[in-house]
């Protein structure tokens, strides 16, 4: 962000999207299945669920932004990962009871990261290509709420991801795994 050119809104949002989702990818890199699904507190989410929820949320909004099917659906991950019920196939985990969220099993950290990496590449390219009019175009968020595409990108690709990064960091610390300081 050192030059005038880098102050373009879409460029900044694309970089922020790539950086935020990159932190989620780093937080699950190399985890064992046990670490990915560990319940560190009766009311806490697992690292696997948090990362899945972050990716699914961004993917859902990305689909609304592009008008195309979500990556999750295009790759058939719900069926491939044995998550065929509607809440897993179509939803992003918001509002799930804790015990349901804690029961999520993903095949491996690498499988989850593969989804996240491809999603990150798609979303950063799509956001970087938005012009000012497209950033202001209303899209559907969650519920019946509409919001400008630029706000949706920042809210659900960036801020939502970063907030869960705080949760990932605490959970990693509780598992005696290193977490970045800030």
């Amino acid at each position, binding site marked *: *962000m050192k030059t005038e050119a880098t*102050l373009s809104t879409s460029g900044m949002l694309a970089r922020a999207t790539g950086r935020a989702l990159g932190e989620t990818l780093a937080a699950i890199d190399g985890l064992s299945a046990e670490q990915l699904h560990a319940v560190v*507190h009766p*009311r806490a989410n697992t690292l696997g669920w948090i990362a899945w929820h972050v990716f699914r949320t961004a993917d859902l909004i990305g689909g609304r932004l592009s008008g195309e099917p979500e990556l999750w659906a295009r790759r058939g991950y719900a069926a491939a990962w044995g998550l065929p019920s509607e809440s897993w196939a179509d939803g992003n985990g918001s509002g799930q009871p804790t015990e349901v969220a804690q029961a999520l099993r993903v095949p491996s950290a690498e499988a989850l990261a593969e989804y996240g990496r491809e999603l990150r590449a798609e979303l950063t390219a799509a956001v970087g290509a938005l012009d000012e009019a497209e950033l*202001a175009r209303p899209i559907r968020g969650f519920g019946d709420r509409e919001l400008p595409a630029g706000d949706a990108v920042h809210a659900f690709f960036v*801020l939502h991801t970063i907030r869960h990064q*705080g949760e990932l960091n605490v959970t990693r610390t509780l598992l005696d795994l290193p977490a970045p300081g800030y």
Partner: protein
Amino acid sequence: MASPAEPYTMQRYAAHFVGRVFDQLIEAVADLTGEELHALPAGAPNTIGFTAWHVFRSADNVVLFAFERERTVWMREGLHEAWGLPKVAQGTGMEPAEAAALRLPGAAALADYGRAVRDELVPRIEAMSDDYLRGISRVVPWGDVPRLEAIGQTVIVHGSQHLGEIAVVRRMLGRDAPLF
């Protein structure tokens, strides 16, 4: 939130999300008892009180002092004296034991400080010119950075990460976590 008819400017974007992060942090502390504010469940990184205070103080320092060399809301209102807390330090690098021992007068007072900082910052950011946002300020510990980057990192991203921490600690205390 920008409406579709309004230009999607950096000022609107930054002011909107600074306000939103502050609103959520304020909501995440306002209903706590003094005991909950200072609780440190096993494994928790910091108390909720320390974390929220640290975010509010960091934003106050950056936008008022680092950008303009103005007195912070913290100093203007004499809160360092009233609360018996550091005048300048805002918690970065504080020893864990010192952070855990930090005592605030209560959730209502902390939320009021958060509101005062939010109400100071949001209109300032809305009024910043493009040139001002591109301009450089020295912000510890990052060094010389464009002001927009400082707002994005120190207020929006930093506040959001700590909001995620607070969500976990609230759950550990048996409280509902803020919805992201």
